[in-house]
């Protein structure tokens, strides 16, 4: 198992960028989105450790390509569902750093008015359901959303993000099965980062292929290099096409790695050093930067400009968030019933 996955990811040649993705601004857009996620998470980590930020956090450094690649294949009125580890998904789907940071600070200007918090960020207007922090709990939900789209005869699709750990849950099994039998327009996006909390997936799956599971339910699955944003985007594009043509669902297993602790203050001692190093060497942002530069698409300046823009953007956002208006105690009673 360990071997297999290492094998898949070892020294992949960085391929040329497919012609359809040749547009520089599109490529830089993907890159900037990934950088935004990384830098966002780094700031949050700092704020958290500093004690400025309440609650708990689950971060996604190292997994930027999955969020950005999938969301790049979606339209604004398509939806995503997410998990406790949802900051990256949110930024990829178009939520602003500001509404996220405000939410993390518990402010009324947050995307959930401060009632959700880090594990439940979302914004319906931007096509993101609040993160479902019950592992796999978003899977039946996404199937239901897709059922609605099908019954309403819209062309919308839903991309449902979950981790490798979620595959063991009954909710996964029940949700994907119904999506399969009813051909629902849902893309099941498994971010396989090899760990569910501290538990490596070879401890909890005897057959280690997540994408293989799809066949047992009678629908297509595919394993993709989840640290290659272009590969992710291509696979997601095929999947959305299939869904829009009534050939859903699709299961995408995106192989990736979490560079950070499972949640706040987790020192990740259960990740082996060589494994960490191998994956760190395959960082999705570094790789994409190299590829863009090597394949002559962009200049170092382009990269620097993005970094500076993101930095500035986040600095402002953090300052704003720190001063964002907090709810009044009486707000506790609102928003319970429609």
């Amino acid at each position, binding site marked *: 198992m360990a071997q297999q996955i290492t094998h898949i990811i070892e020294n992949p040649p960085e391929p040329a960028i497919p012609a359809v993705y040749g547009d520089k601004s599109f490529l830089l857009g993907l890159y900037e989105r990934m950088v935004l996620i990384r830098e966002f998470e780094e700031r949050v980590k700092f704020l958290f450790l500093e004690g400025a930020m309440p609650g708990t956090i689950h971060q996604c450094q190292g997994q930027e390509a999955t969020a950005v690649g999938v969301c790049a294949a979606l339209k604004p009125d398509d939806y995503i569902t997410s998990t406790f580890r949802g900051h990256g998904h949110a930024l990829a789907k178009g939520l602003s750093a500001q509404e996220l940071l405000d939410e993390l600070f518990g402010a009324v200007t947050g995307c959930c008015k401060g*009632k959700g918090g880090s594990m439940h960020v979302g914004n*319906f207007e931007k096509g993101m359901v609040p993160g479902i922090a019950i592992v796999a709990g978003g899977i039946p*939900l996404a*199937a239901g959303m897709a059922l609605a789209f099908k*019954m309403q005869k819209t062309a919308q699709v839903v991309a449902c993000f979950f981790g490798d750990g979620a595959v063991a849950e009954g909710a996964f099994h029940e949700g994907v*099965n119904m999506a399969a039998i*009813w051909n629902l327009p849902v893309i099941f996006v498994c971010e396989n980062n090899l760990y569910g909390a501290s538990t490596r997936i070879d401890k909890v799956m005897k057959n280690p292929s997540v994408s293989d599971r799809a066949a047992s339910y009678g629908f297509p699955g595919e394993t993709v290099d989840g640290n290659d944003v272009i590969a992710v985007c291509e696979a997601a594009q095929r999947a959305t096409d299939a869904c829009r043509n009534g050939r859903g669902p699709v299961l995408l297993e995106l192989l990736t790695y979490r560079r950070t602790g499972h949640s706040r203050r987790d020192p990740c001692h259960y990740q082996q050093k060589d494994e960490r190093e191998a994956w760190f060497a395959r960082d999705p942002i570094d790789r994409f930067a190299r590829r863009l530069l090597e394949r002559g698409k962009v200049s170092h300046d382009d990269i620097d400009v993005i970094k500076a823009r993101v930095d500035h953007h986040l600095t402002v956002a953090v300052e704003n968030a720190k001063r964002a208006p907090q709810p009044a105690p009486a707000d506790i009673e609102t928003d319970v019933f429609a």
Partner: protein
Amino acid sequence: MKRQGIAEALRDGIAEEMARDHRVFCIGEDIGVPGGWGGAFTVTLGLSAKFPGRIIDTPIAELGFTGIAVGAAMMGMRPIADMQYGDFLFLASDQLINNAAKMRYMSGGKTSVPMVMRAPIGATGRGSQHAQSMERYFTGVPGLKVIAPSNAYDAKGMLKAAVRDDNPVIIFEHKLLYGSKGARAESGAVDATSDIPDGDYTVPLDKAAVRREGSQVTILAWLLMLHYGLSAAGTLAQQGIDAEVIDVRSLSPIDYDTIGASIRKTGRAVIVEEGPKTGGVSAELAAGIMERFGESLLAPVVRVASPDVPVPFSPILENAYRPDASRIIEAVRSLVQ
């Protein structure tokens, strides 16, 4: 105007809502299979022919289809989910409580989950796992409404109101009230038929109903127990005790206005509940009444409920489990005298 039992009235209510609003659909196990039964208690019988593609038969996967209902509701549909037996709600309660009930709050009011969950409850000769009274597990869950109609008029009217409500609503139905006649009637079934008006009507989700006026004691009950409570009140009247009987009907929220008016008049309350006494809905009713109308109470509130045991199979034991009119009479007499 026609006379209908609860199963028929619910069926018509669902059909009318589906005709009225194309967003309404039904989802559950064995609810629309041709040649099948229209759910375990015939409530959706015939609807799949009438509404093709809108009566969705699912695999046996309660957590999954409940989650699917929640997701569809968020995206603007109006699902009516069917839990074959209330006992299986435990499999679905994560989706009901962690997702459906909290979604609006967690999102800061940005969405709503207008779904209905129908679930039959009650001890009916099927042993421990198809028998529980499940109301207690959902009453008081913030974000969820819970109703429990005792007659066909209410069942139809409240179901329709639930479908039109923008929040998740659980409607508990009692197996012994669906219908007391016909091949599928349960042994021990009670007549819960009503005169059903021809036109559209709804019954509010948050109002109790005074079923019998009386001055000396208030009997509070719902579902099957309401019928037993009325029968007890009849006997008590012959014995010179004048009981008011309230159909609590709306379990979450509880209509303390109607209840309070009665308590202020009678000064005494007996709550009747099918299901173990400890931790039941009666506990909330008793505590809530004491809190709000304590100064009007002439005596402590009394609870008549099942013993704190699982539901037994043997008919002798099952009858000893479920409160009946004689236990209610006994409780009222010792309270009033």
